[in-house]
């Protein structure tokens, strides 16, 4: 398989503060990687570093054969990296449709395709971002990232704080994305069981370091190992 993303000995953080230390990973094209770990171990920082939102202290990041070091965030997005942030960060005063179209770039994903994936958004297309529920905002955040027609989709805790019925809907949409085969997904998730079931491979972070990198199935059948790696009882 072709490798899409590679981090080599990456150390990064905010200003002088180093959060990630010598993190290395590789993700194959069309593959899925879950990143799990306790709160504050650097999961969000890992995604932010791939997007270019942190201070890179060492190492290298390569995406689709391109060295991302020193590349601005908007150039990384244009190179094919989509990012769904933890806080969703919907543009409150733009309508649903405007939130989607400001991110549009040529490719397979279009308004119609996003509306097909999230029919609820189509019904709310004229509503402003601040008039949406949490679940709708999350769908919009994913849809907005897809409108950029990424090769790699980074998702930071997309299920956090949502009602179970909405989680079901989002998981179904994420499954469809995975099944479509054209997208590589890196999912940061607190719900370990969901993460392990979704991704082919899993990375466990602890205090900014990689403590496990392997097949999800390896962890899925061994809850005690998961608890040891994460340091707390797993969340279902």
């Amino acid at each position: 398989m072709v490798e899409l993303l590679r981090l080599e000995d990456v150390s990064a953080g905010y200003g002088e503060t180093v959060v990630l230390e010598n993190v290395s990973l590789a993700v194959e094209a069309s593959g899925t990687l879950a990143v799990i770990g306790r709160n504050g171990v650097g999961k969000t920082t890992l995604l932010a570093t791939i997007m270019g939102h942190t201070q890179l202290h060492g190492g290298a990041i390569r995406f689709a054969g391109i060295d991302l070091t020193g590349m601005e965030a908007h150039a990384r997005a244009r190179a094919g990296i989509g990012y769904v942030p933890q806080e969703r960060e919907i543009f409150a005063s733009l309508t649903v449709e405007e939130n989607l179209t400001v991110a549009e770039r040529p490719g397979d994903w279009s308004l119609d395709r996003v509306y097909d994936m999230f029919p609820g958004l189509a019904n709310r297309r004229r509503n402003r971002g601040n008039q949406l529920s949490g679940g709708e905002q999350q769908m919009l955040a994913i849809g907005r990232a897809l409108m950029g027609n990424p090769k790699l989709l980074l998702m930071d805790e997309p299920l956090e704080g949502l009602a179970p019925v909405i989680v079901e809907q989002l998981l179904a949409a994420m499954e469809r994305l995975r099944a479509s085969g054209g997208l590589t997904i890196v999912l940061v998730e607190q719900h370990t069981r969901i993460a392990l079931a979704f991704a082919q491979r899993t990375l466990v972070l602890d205090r900014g370091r990689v403590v496990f990198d392997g097949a999800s199935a390896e962890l899925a059948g061994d809850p005690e190992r998961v608890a040891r790696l994460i340091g707390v009882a797993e969340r279902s």
Partner: protein
Amino acid sequence: MALHPIDHFAAGHRLRPIELLPWALAVGYFFLPNANLPLGTEILIWALFALSLDLVLGYTGIVSLGHAAFFGIGAYAAGLAARWLGWTEPISALLFAGLVAGAAGIVSGMIVLRTHGLTLLMLTMAVAVMLKEIANKLGWLTGGADGLQGIVIDPVLGLYRFDMFGRTSYVYALVVLFLAWIVARRIVHSPFGRGLVGIRENATRMSAIGSPVMRRMVTVYAISAALAGVAGALLAQSTRYVTLNVLSLEYSGDVLIMLVLGGMGRLYGAFAGATVFLVLRDELSKISPAYWGFGIGLLLVATVLFARGGLLGLVDIALARIRGKRS
């Protein structure tokens, strides 16, 4: 068949009949027997100036205390071209002034827009202060503190002379403002314009979805500077005189107050703010030539405390209540 994004925007922002109201009022005013057309022209010019500021402040969130720099550059560009180069044809001179101010916007924007907050505020102000001091020192060219005099402007389209009653100036300014409004309206309702709102709300997020934030900010800053320059050139052409005031902090402050009064990020707030400010100034100065500013200040305090969306925000609230009662 799927619509192109720009068609989606256009469909959502078709011209509503209410948007023609200010233009109908402006045209109607021209035909009033006792119309104060010089004041009307001043309102139109300041409305254009405020409209230019709305693009950067209201839509993009770039706070500027030195927007008069571009107004002044436009005024001096048109004035100097007419006075020293014999470039007396008004429409081409207006375009020239807009280009010069727009170029200044690109150059200064590439420097000042790298900063944020207080630093940005101070830098925008510093640009205007420096330009004013340069204009003052180059008295042999600009007339310095005495102002640039002896400006001759040809009739508009070779037909309409600038008359002492201000008829030509009024119509000329109205047409220019209308064209600028079309440009501004097109911009704010385009994907580029919606992107500006995205930058105002969250520049980091815009960057993460692939928007070159700095380039877009410089672009809109330059467009805004060009429009401000056109407004300054209109003032120079209609009064045939340019003073150092066009680069003053007072002008930068006045245009900001007009926009806050009218309502930012609305396009039409510039029209309402300029009208209220200048009519109020005119009326209050008849009562008290020395203290008219007190009345403006009082209105500004009331606006920022009780009408955060400006006068047009109050209209929105009133309309929403009426609709609420009906439903």
